[in-house]
């Protein structure tokens, strides 16, 4: 077996040193009744590299890759061009095959890029500090709500209606163990009044911007209303590239930002692994979940980096830990930070502008189709259309014609009949003029 270096002779020599008759003797503590013979596993035997490649290629071909057809799917996962240097660098052995940097003397590479990453995330979101990442945007949102419960010692969290339903469900699963999550009604393209729901029991209000329908939300009045009642504002961002063009949540009064970082540096990968971004105000740092890297000096006085404030973490605090999160999403954070370093200040602004311009143009083209209305008057690179009939069937028909038209809102909210006709459409720099023209043409034909 190509991955196992021991030879038969090695094994015999090693057993002799140990003083064991055979390898079974090493498993002598296993009850005989629990030993499973090899033949009892209904699974195939080892295969060579070529055979494994064949099996996977066959499976991969049964999927429609976003790059192979005009593709306009978003709703929390976005296709952007990732420079070739990113994937090359993250595959360096020293990054790919190292463990969590618990031994800082031989982990400065990981620690330094995480310190740089924390700085980039803080700058991008307009917050003071950021952690070294969480699993993804949805779990980051859940952690933000738990943090608000701890900070305010209040039990209620209010979700705006424009939250990604998966994010709300993930948060409810976890946060309802410690408090109560309520959701405002869904009103695509409109801003429902949340302020009347905020009371003295409210720990936080959670608002996504751009929201799941693509609508850019003005957080300032909500921040004001929340703060007036002693509650916190949690801003959720699922398309982080938007912050290259839009005012960051930190400038709009957010106390915690929970975001999905997949858009920068990371591929779609059918939903994971992704990258949870988490940023907050300096004064809340000791209640922040997840790993943190801090600057310090070594015994010779040289600048270096360490994991810090780790007493909040569960391997030390055990049943008193601030959260259940153990790992971060290190390699995804690395891809993010490399891509953002390549973009730089100017590159990110250009990328964001290209996305918005593309989406604005596409919205114009699609609303020219008879019966199609734009529901979201202000958006970044994603908007919602009302079609004259249920969107799911339209998407299926277009998929059969080789075009991924976006995400029908009913896919995310199947129990809500009010959103049946809504189609969520994303456009990025990867969509060409031809893609957009093909979409408008095909939509017109399908709806006529």
């Amino acid at each position, binding site marked *: 077996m190509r991955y196992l270096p021991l030879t038969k002779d090695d094994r015999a020599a090693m057993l002799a040193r140990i003083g064991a008759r055979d390898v079974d003797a090493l498993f002598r503590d296993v009850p005989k009744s629990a030993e*499973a013979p090899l033949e009892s596993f209904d*699974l195939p035997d080892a295969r060579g590299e070529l055979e494994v490649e064949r099996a996977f290629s066959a499976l991969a071909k049964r999927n429609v890759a976003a790059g192979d057809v005009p593709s306009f799917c978003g709703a929390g996962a976005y296709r952007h061009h990732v420079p070739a240097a990113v994937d090359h660098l993250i595959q360096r052995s020293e990054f*790919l095959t190292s463990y969590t940097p618990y031994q800082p003397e031989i982990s400065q590479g990981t620690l330094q890029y995480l310190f740089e990453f924390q700085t980039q995330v803080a700058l991008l979101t307009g917050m003071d500090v950021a952690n070294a990442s969480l699993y993804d945007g949805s779990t980051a949102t859940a952690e933000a709500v738990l943090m608000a419960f701890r900070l305010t010692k209040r039990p209620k969290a209010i979700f705006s209606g424009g939250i990604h339903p998966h994010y709300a469900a993930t948060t409810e699963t976890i946060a309802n163990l410690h408090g109560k999550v309520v959701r405002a009604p869904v009103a695509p393209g409109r801003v429902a009044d949340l302020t009347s729901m905020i009371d003295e029991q409210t720990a936080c209000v959670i608002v996504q911007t751009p929201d799941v329908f693509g609508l850019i939300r003005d957080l300032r009045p909500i921040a004001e209303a929340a703060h007036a009642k002693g509650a916190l504002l949690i801003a959720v961002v699922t398309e982080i590239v938007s912050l290259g063009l839009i005012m960051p949540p930190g400038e*709009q009064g957010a106390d915690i930002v929970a975001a999905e970082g997949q858009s920068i540096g990371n591929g779609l990968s059918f939903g994971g692994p992704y990258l949870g971004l988490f940023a907050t105000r300096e004064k809340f740092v000791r209640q922040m979940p997840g790993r943190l890297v801090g600057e310090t000096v070594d015994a010779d006085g040289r600048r270096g980096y360490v994991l810090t404030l780790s007493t909040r973490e569960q391997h030390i605090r055990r049943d008193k830990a601030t959260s259940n999160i153990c790992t971060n999403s290190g390699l995804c954070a690395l891809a993010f930070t490399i891509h953002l370093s390549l973009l730089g200040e100017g590159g990110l602004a250009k990328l964001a502008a290209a996305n918005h311009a593309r989406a604005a143009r596409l919205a114009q083209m699609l609303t020219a189709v008879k019966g199609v209305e734009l529901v979201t008057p202000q958006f970044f690179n994603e908007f919602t259309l009302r079609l004259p009939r249920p969107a799911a069937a339209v998407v299926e028909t277009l998929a059969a014609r080789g075009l991924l038209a976006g995400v029908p809102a009913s896919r995310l909210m199947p129990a809500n009949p009010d959103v049946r006709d809504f189609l969520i459409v994303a456009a990025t720099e990867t969509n060409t003029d031809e893609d957009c023209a093909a979409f408008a043409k095909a939509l017109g034909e399908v709806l006529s």
Partner: protein
Amino acid sequence: MNMNVKTPPQAAPLPTISGDRGLDHEEPLIFELGRPGKTGVDLPDVEVSDARLGGLRRRGSIGLPSLSEPEVVRHYVRLSRMNYAIDAGLYPLGSCTMKHNPRLNEKMARLPGFADLHPLAPQSAAQGALTLMNELARWLMKLAGMPAVTLAPKAGAHGELCGILSIRAAVEASGQKRTRVLIPESAHGTNPATAAFAGFTVDEIKATPDGRVDLESLKGKLGPDVAALMLTNPNTCGLFERDIVEIARLVHEAGAYFYCDGANFNAIAGRVRPGDLGVDAMHINLHKTFSTPHGGGGPGAGPVVLSARLAPFAPLPLMVLEHGKIRLIEDVSEAPAGAKPFGRMCAFHGQMGMFVRALAYMLSHGRDGIRQASEDAVLNANYVLASLNDVLHAPFEGPCMHEALFDEKTLHENGVTTLDFAKAMIDEGYHPMTMYFPLVVHGAMLIEPTESESKESLDRFIAVLRTMALDAAAGRKERFEGAPRLAPRRRLDEVAASRKPVLRWKPAPARAAE
């Protein structure tokens, strides 16, 4: 035995003019390298109107550094060279399972059909991916001997939480009031953290002198208010719980569930099925047993196998076979009859990129290779144990499973701590073993060589550790005091880092103003 071990240099090398030392380069922060006017991407200039921005256009600059591609590449290459890695050397980190990461798995995960597949693409356009997930699920269920699995959890601790929430849901559905979770004192810190997080009170069970669960202590703690036992098997001392079948019986008899922490499944995969032992739920760290890369701390994946009693409570999404196609159930309103999902662990469907890698590992190894890998991992650990237990003190009698445990008894008599010993390993070119865990042993040193190490590699490692242990026992402390000396950094001041946390870079004027 080859004792080709060099003594450390007596004096520090002369300082260099550049501050770099040969291949060891110092590297500034990327913020200190950037200069306005540079870029690492070529993107068109696009004019954007404010018409659709709702008056929320960003004002002012972000403050991100700007660099060209060659500068960016050099920065990260230089950083990478400050890291230890399994590709570069033995990584004996007990309970973390640093085994070889086959590059085939990376290649497969990058096939556009997986890497460039949108999670909300129509399911008709993702049947290959769903088939792959189904196939991974089948392997996990067959290897575990259990009838159900959820792939959603994103890491081991996330899987633990998922398993405990399944148990919580089952307890609630039964109408019983069970509030306590029993956990052995040797457990991973994540176990009590998870149980407390899920709203249970944690009750510790004592260990026997030979490092196993004390059955009498367990019996004394079991009762009608116990929801579950959380147990790692093989346990964190690297030992198989001999009484596991009896433990499961007692737990079930008390009406509770048996949660197994599967962190150490790599010792028994292909030889022992947890389902045969009476386990009700177990998370499987794909980044340990099935070798998806650790990536400097994630991403991982922690699918959870479930017994028939817990299967109905598995979280969303669910997979069902419909007219020869696989359908993902993503919302509770669409759940099939009998399913009572307790909720959702994350957006979308779990760590697809890790699923591809883990399945590539499984198909490559096959059932025979997986069994052989487990046996070799156990053989390698016992070889280390047998080769060192005359110079380091092993608190428990062997055979061990996939990791060998020592304590500081022979070291600290002469003023060498576990920490000193471990840091001195860095100067010898090794990553330290896991230290001070499990907590039930003083100054624990937990060595997990994994099946990826050759006998030659182990012999060299053993020779180095023997000399170190003999030096420590003889009171020759030079190599330990202040180690490491030859790493990119010496010991770092963690106290200063946490007293006045500096968690981000700030431009020089801002720093000076503080």
